[in-house]
């Protein structure tokens, strides 16, 4: 409910369900805070967001309140600039700094530190504390996070995120009074697969990104490029930061309906593969001799020239790269190159998505009843699992109202959450991370799960009272069914959704597919590797960013049956080893492209790393080789935009990819900050003349520090910064309202509206063998940090 309040004599319209702090921030007012977090809610522990509130028109004295713990009332009068409030806020920051080491110059967070920002915001300058500071011994928290406990200002955000939000139980707060210690009960790697978020959740430098620390640069000295995580089908939005042609780190890129403020550790630390020794940097021939790029590309052109060449696509390669290969070899010679299991699943996923539509991650978070079927979401789609966990913790609004608890009051809501739990069913073949949240967790074989899902659908259809699950789902207002597994199970789950909708319950379906572009590939082609094997009669084969040995145990047979095997990839794989021609290409971070995630969301990622090495993007490289081979079709793709236009006319299903790819209009947004330093000196030891900025025309983002801060048409914002807000929390300033969308951003979905067909899917019985290894993703497994994390093992 919107209402008007007065803040510093200015009338603003606010959402009455917010707290006063969120309302002030939404109105783009500066109010300092530490413990409040838009996703974690209010607990009132830091006392930093004090403002003055006046009771009625005659009150001239007012009363200091903590904005984060204050409900809004129509006509309320608030003073942020009130002298007493200003003094109090400065006193609070001065107090928490009594133990802070002021080590900003040697702290990785210096320059993007929320504590620094808030200190400046309060106007605090001079230090008066002259006694001994509390000091702590740091712990070894594993390969992802370095611990610098002395910097702690005790805001409790870390423990609230780790325990309450992410369900971790190996990290907490120890001791009491001034001697509180945030860490583990003993040294050891943090067990939560969301631990990396501590880096961004901590308002200062207690939890430091360890791999980043080893190749550290200041935030303002790195190029920031919007990107999409390539490590699973959720496609969380990330920002890739680079300098000197090296990927330095990945941070969360806020997207309110997808990943929000958080990533999983696979996403944050898995991208280390880009700089890992397993990276394929040079092209080679079958004798393993390094080929100059021009020679490798010429050989690729020769292969493309041969008629009947088979193209094998990949669910981890972009839409563009898959499409380019498909067009160059001809649709009939192009195969998705996945296992039979995945092939069947992809086919049904596409059919289901068209008819039923797909839930967004935000839908999963806001569900009031959940049914998980098949695999552990935490293994296959970690960020979605985290969203599902939140749904299970949400206290029904009736209970909150009855207890007089506003939804943002995290402390009170947590207490109330002990009383009531939303129905949450986890039916998997192996133990699931979500089991502790489940009102019912069942272990069943894959076949039994299909049978059970079918029974649930039919119980819903007949309103049978003998199924608890059906009853609970029928009572829900926005249930979500999250499923992963084989084609039959996906269909059985879709049938539950159809049955619920027929009963008037607006249920949604979340398909947890295996890879970043699984659904995108499924929309181009879904034929399995076995089909390619059947078709191969000694032709040439081009494999695009795919290790066939992970897809089928007959991969060797296929490669052996081909005349020439050309593998385009950016990592060393078994297939690369078997190739007669291995062509080094760019990773996602070196490329422009589009993934379609498991929600059917088409998401563009942009070239983020610039090295002096010519074209490496698969699609552009294939185009150039195609042109060299005299294939006219390649001439239709002089630019990325042109390729998307061709894609739209060839595969109308994927026409939306053009929408997801903002066009350059006017000045291109800067990917370097205003303060980017050393540009003229970085290469001075080689040549004192300043090098030209990288030239790159396939991205709507500029490569320099010149240009607007935001892409006017799409809201894409490379550098998250605004004066006074140097940390990740600068995002506040770019959201329409706190926790809402980034202003001007748009989202593009392939399956916009589900069809009105209500016919149930036919669920086949017998299934192909499931040879998937869950919880492991090929590329992230090559990241040195992930390898180190596996070696560190689990303490429990």
């Amino acid at each position, binding site marked *: 409910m919107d209402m008007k309040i007065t803040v510093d004599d200015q009338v603003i319209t606010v959402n009455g369900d917010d707290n006063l702090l969120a309302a002030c921030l939404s109105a783009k007012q500066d109010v300092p805070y530490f413990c409040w977090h838009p996703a974690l809610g209010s607990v009132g522990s830091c006392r930093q967001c004090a403002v003055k509130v006046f009771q009625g028109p005659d009150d001239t004295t007012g009363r200091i309140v903590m904005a984060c713990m204050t409900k809004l009332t129509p006509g309320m009068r608030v003073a942020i600039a009130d002298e007493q409030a200003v003094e109090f806020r400065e006193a609070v920051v001065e107090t928490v700094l009594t133990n802070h080491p002021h080590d900003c110059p040697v702290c990785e967070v210096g320059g993007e530190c929320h504590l620094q920002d808030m200190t400046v915001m309060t106007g605090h300058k001079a230090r008066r504390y002259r006694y001994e500071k509390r000091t702590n011994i740091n712990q070894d928290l594993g390969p992802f996070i370095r611990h610098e406990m002395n910097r702690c200002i005790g805001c409790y955000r870390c423990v609230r995120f780790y325990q309450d939000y992410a369900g971790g*139980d190996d990290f907490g707060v*120890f001791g*009491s009074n001034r001697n509180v210690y945030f860490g583990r009960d003993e040294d050891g790697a943090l067990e939560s697969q969301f631990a990396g978020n501590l880096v961004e959740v901590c308002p200062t430098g207690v939890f430091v990104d360890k791999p980043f620390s080893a190749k550290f640069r200041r935030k303002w000295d790195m190029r920031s490029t919007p990107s999409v995580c390539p490590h699973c089908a959720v496609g969380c939005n990330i920002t890739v930061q680079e300098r000197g042609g090296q990927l330095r780190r990945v941070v969360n890129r806020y997207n309110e309906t997808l990943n929000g403020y958080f990533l999983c550790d696979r996403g944050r630390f898995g991208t280390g593969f880009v700089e890992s020794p397993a990276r394929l940097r040079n092209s080679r021939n079958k004798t393993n001799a390094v080929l100059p790029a021009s020679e490798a590309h010429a050989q690729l052109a020769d292969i493309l020239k041969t008629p009947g060449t088979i193209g094998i696509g990949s669910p981890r390669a972009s839409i563009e790269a898959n499409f380019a290969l498909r067009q160059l070899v001809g649709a009939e010679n192009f195969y998705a190159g996945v296992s039979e299991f995945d092939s069947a699943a992809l086919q049904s996923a596409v059919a289901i998505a068209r008819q039923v539509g797909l839930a967004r991650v935000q839908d999963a978070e806001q569900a009031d009843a959940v049914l998980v079927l098949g695999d552990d979401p935490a293994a296959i789609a970690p960020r979605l699992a985290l969203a599902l966990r939140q749904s299970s913790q949400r206290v029904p609004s009736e209970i909150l109202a009855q207890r007089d608890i506003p939804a943002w009051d995290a402390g009170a809501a947590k207490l109330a959450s002990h009383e009531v739990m939303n129905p949450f069913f986890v039916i998997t073949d192996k133990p699931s991370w979500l089991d502790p949240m489940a009102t019912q967790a069942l272990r069943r074989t894959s076949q039994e799960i299909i049978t059970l899902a079918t029974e649930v659908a039919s119980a819903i259809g007949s309103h049978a009272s003998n199924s608890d699950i059906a009853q609970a789902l029928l009572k829900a207002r926005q249930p979500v069914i999250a499923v992963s597994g084989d084609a039959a199970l996906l269909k059985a789950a879709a049938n539950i959704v159809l049955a619920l909708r027929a009963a008037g319950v607006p249920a949604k379906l979340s398909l947890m597919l295996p890879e970043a572009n699984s659904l995108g590939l499924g929309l181009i082609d879904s034929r399995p590797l076995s089909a390619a094997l059947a078709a191969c009669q000694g032709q040439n084969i081009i494999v695009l960013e795919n290790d066939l040995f992970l897809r089928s145990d007959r991969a060797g047979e296929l490669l052996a049956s081909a005349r020439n095997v050309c593998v385009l990839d950016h990592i060393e794989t078994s297939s690369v080893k078997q190739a007669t021609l291995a062509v080094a290409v760019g990773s996602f971070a070196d490329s422009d492209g589009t993934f379609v995630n498991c929600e059917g969301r088409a998401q563009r990622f942009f070239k983020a790393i610039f090295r002096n090495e010519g074209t490496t993007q698969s699609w552009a490289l294939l185009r150039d080789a195609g042109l060299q081979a005299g294939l006219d079709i390649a001439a239709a793709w002089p630019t990325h935009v042109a390729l998307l236009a061709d894609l739209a006319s060839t595969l109308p299903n994927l026409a939306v990819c053009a929408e997801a790819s903002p066009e350059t209009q006017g000045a291109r947004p800067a990917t370097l900050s205003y303060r980017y330093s050393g540009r003229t000196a970085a290469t001075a030891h080689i040549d004192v003349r300043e090098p030209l900025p990288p030239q790159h025309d396939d991205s709507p983002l500029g490569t320099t520090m010149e240009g607007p801060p935001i892409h006017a048409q799409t809201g894409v914002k490379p550098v998250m910064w605004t004066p006074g807000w140097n940390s990740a929390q600068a995002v506040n300033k770019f959201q329409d309202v706190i926790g809402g969308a980034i202003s001007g951003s748009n989202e593009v979905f392939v399956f916009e509206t589900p069809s009105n067909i209500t016919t149930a899917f036919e669920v086949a019985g017998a299934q192909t063998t499931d040879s998937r290894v869950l919880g492991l993703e090929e590329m992230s497994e090559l990241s040195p940090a992930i390898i180190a994390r596996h070696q560190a093992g689990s303490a429990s």
Partner: protein
Amino acid sequence: MTAKSILTAAELDGIAALISHYPTARAACIDSLKLVQEKRRYIADDVLAEIAHLLGMSVAELDEVATFYNLIYRQPVGETVILLCDSVTCWMMGRNQVAADISKRLAIKDGETTADGKYTMLPIVCLGHCDHAPAMLMGKTLVGNVDAAQLDRLLPEARA
């Protein structure tokens, strides 16, 4: 738990009885720590881990609680813990002199344990014996009007 229990049968029974006092096992955690500390004097890491397991808590969760409360000892203490009040009335009535006297007799400072493992000396907040200040707890015994003569009686092996 397949590994052999560190806790004795009596301790396990005691914890089970305490759990029955509350609707959740976790609620019995402070009682359980105190029960086990009775005989063991302090809560060693392995003991903490086993109690946590019994109560369905993680080690960190239980240690968060154990380290919060000052009467749960996570380090070894002596047979008798001397808790000498340091709050205002006792301070006014000479607790610092008493503390110095005990320190001298036992050759330990606050937080230390005598070499023979008999005594540990710790400050404590008001013991609710202000009309007999200075006050202290020797083990479970509340002692008021503590002075040199009292200490001669209570610490016979360490007469001034």
